């Protein structure tokens, strides 16, 4: 059941990426090109998504628990550390080079571009390396 619900929600999310234009790296790179062919559209994607989630989360989090779970898993408000700054900066550089963030890289699977087929496996490799790096960091801190 959760598989089907998640499939539907992933579909909705992905259709949102497609309709908004965020699935197209050319549009993303033009958004990021403030001093060139600037296309402000993606500010509207973020605006629409954040405002919707702002009100929606308030309604949902008033409930005692999620429909198919025992509790809400909200990220703990840990301090802002070097890791979040460094990771975000690295992510931003990659986003600026390729025009893909993780969601649009996944919606690109059926669209047949060679660039996406190189990007995707490398993205998963990067994710795996980061998980190793985080795990070893945690082990060092715990020791």
């Amino acid at each position, binding site marked *: 059941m959760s598989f089907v619900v998640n499939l539907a929600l992933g579909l909705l999310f992905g259709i949102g990426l497609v309709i908004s234009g965020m699935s197209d790296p050319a549009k993303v790179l033009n958004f990021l090109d403030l001093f060139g062919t600037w296309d402000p559209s993606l500010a509207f994607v973020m605006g629409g998504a954040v405002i919707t989630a702002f009100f929606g989360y308030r309604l949902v989090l008033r409930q005692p628990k999620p429909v198919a779970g025992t509790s809400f898993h909200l990220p703990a*408000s840990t301090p802002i550390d070097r890791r979040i700054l460094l990771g975000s900066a690295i992510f931003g550089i990659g986003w600026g080079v390729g025009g893909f963030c993780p969601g649009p890289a996944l*919606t690109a699977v059926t669209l047949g571009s060679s660039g996406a087929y190189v990007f995707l496996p490398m993205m998963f490799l990067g994710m795996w390396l980061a998980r190793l790096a985080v795990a070893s960091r945690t082990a060092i801190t715990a020791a």
Partner: protein
Amino acid sequence: MTDFTPIASTLGGILIGISAVLLMAWEGRIAGISGIASRLLPPYLDGAFLSRIGFVLGLVAAPVAYSVATGQAVLQSVSSNLPQMAVAGLLVGFGSVYGNGCTSGHGVCGLSRLSVRSLVATLTFMAAAFATVFVIRHVAGA
């Protein structure tokens, strides 16, 4: 050049927001794509693998569903500079997981929860991305 599409972009953004809200209502989880995708890789620390594979398959199928429903092809223009795309993929994958979130997790879910940490992360990756495109397009002149 790409066309300025404020209405379609806002509408698409609202759909993304609704998906994030419903995922919280159903599973109690944040709709962060880097978190969902990276946890498809081992180690598996909770029982949510099937949920995550479902969400990712939904993302993958979305352009097909869109084309079937509307009769329109999904247009996409991707760089064919493959070494550059390889580096981009590695940086995006590593950075989003190491920094605990990407455009969706920090940008959409975090900002809407008024998380200061996500705001700092979002400003950081936006600044890095703006700077990167500036250097590539206007300094290196590619």
